[in-house]
């Protein structure tokens, strides 16, 4: 997986990335195991940035671990916790240490996390953040000062295909593309018909940008309901909840993997988009199983 992600985007037919959630603490052993397990099976490994507004080991730290273990990290940067100075400084640092891919995100609200009384920053939004990275890529900071040594990030952004209404999201999607992104990793996709409709409209906006469908396996009806209520941007349809509810006791994980696998196969066979981004939070070790079952 040492191939630069930008090159993978250019050359590979079906791109696969996965997410590695950092530990809350400094015992990085399990994270390293996940990195070792996944680095040669996927084209890039995303590291979340205080995911769900829960304070953790930093994204940049875990990306360095991925580099140290010869993987290809994708640094997730949210606008929630740092202002424009801190974000730019972190981006300079990350690139100087070999991290060359960045996913620009708004960030989940402070209210869903474990530091609910914190001051939300949101000095930038995700579209502005893309502009900032583009500026750094051109050798200047966001206010136009020359950098002594610039960066050249491969830039990604997110999209929400299941949003209701979808139109405001599509406008924002278009603004992200106008700002200049190389790839899109979507939020969790469950309803493929809905996703196809999204892709049709997305392709009208941009034919070339690489779009990876977000895959978040759900391992039980209760978990699905919990996620619908509490995880921003996730909306598991009722028919999947029913399917999970009907699965015999103790088979939730395998049922969830089966549903995810089927989706990945269909996305690939029907060439619905350019790849998948698998987020199996807390069960990263199961990702190879999904990939194998999906024939990747």
């Amino acid at each position, binding site marked *: 997986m040492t191939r630069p992600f930008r090159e993978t985007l250019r050359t590979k037919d079906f791109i696969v990335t996965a997410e590695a959630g950092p530990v809350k603490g400094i015992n990085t052993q399990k994270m390293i195991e996940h990195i070792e397990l996944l680095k040669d099976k996927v084209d890039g490994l995303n590291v979340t940035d205080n995911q769900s507004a829960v304070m953790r080991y930093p994204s940049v730290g875990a990306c360095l671990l991925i580099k140290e273990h010869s993987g290809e990290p994708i640094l997730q940067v949210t606008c929630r916790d740092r202002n424009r100075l801190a974000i730019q400084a972190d981006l300079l640092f990350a690139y100087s240490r070999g991290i060359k891919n960045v996913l620009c995100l708004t960030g989940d609200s402070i209210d869903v996390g474990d530091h609910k009384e914190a001051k939300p920053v949101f000095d930038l939004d995700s579209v502005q953040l893309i502009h900032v990275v583009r500026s750094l890529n051109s050798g200047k900071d966001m206010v136009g000062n020359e950098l002594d040594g610039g960066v050249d990030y491969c830039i990604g952004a997110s999209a929400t295909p299941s949003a209701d209404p979808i139109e405001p*999201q599509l406008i924002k999607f278009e603004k992200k593309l106008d700002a200049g992104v190389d790839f899109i990793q979507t939020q969790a996709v469950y309803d493929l018909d809905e996703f196809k409709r999204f892709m049709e409209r997305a392709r009208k906006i941009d034919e070339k940008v690489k779009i990876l469908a977000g895959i978040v396996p759900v391992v039980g009806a209760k978990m699905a309901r919990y996620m619908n209520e509490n995880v921003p941007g996730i*909306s598991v349809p009722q028919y999947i909840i029913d399917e999970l509810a009907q699965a015999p006791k103790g088979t939730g994980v395998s049922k969830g993997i089966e549903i995810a696998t089927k989706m990945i196969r269909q996305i690939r066979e029907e060439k619905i988009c350019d790849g998948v981004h698998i987020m199996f939070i807390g069960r990263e070790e199961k990702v190879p199983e999904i990939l194998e079952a999906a024939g990747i």
Partner: protein
Amino acid sequence: MIIAERKPLEEIRGMISGCKRILVVGCGTCVTICWAGGEKEVGILSSQLRLVRLASSREGKKLSIVEAVVERQCEKEMVIEELRDKMQDVEAILSMACGIGVQTVADVFEEKPVFPALNTTFMGMPEGEGVWTEKCGACGDCMLYWTGGICPVVRCAKGLLNGPCGGTRKGGKCEIDSEKDCAWVLIYRRLEKQGRLDLMRKYYEPKNYRAVKRPGKIEALEA
């Protein structure tokens, strides 16, 4: 208008503990309209404070309260006019105004401790009976003309300037509160109605947080 809520009785009681005579002063403008610090609320709080003091075996002292309302507590002249004759033997002032009123009273009567009985929460408007919602963050760089008269700076929970976040719930509700509308969905719908969706497609630069130099001060005569 400025919206505020009364602090819990326990907190207010703690502030005035040890005082024998206080002035409770309401404000006749914003906080009267939002049911937090008008004449009626001055009366209720004063009664509550007298009662809890009477019931307290520890403090054991009777509390004497002077009640007053200043039409606009944020104006020094009005504060002086209304309160100067009521200060005799008053040990502390409990202001039921917004933070601006509290500070005005504190500036006028520098020798007295002034305590806030309210928490000032936001600038907003009455939305219905007993409901007030936030509308303006006083950012000093108004963009309402781009956004269909709906402010994303305060009505979007994240203050996003270029469209909704990915957390929007079904039906266009906010990520953090399924009861609240996503401001960007509201903006979208209004601009669509006006045939001005191109305004939403426009890119908005990062906000200029120096539009108002904090702490803010405007000197109209000098300009």
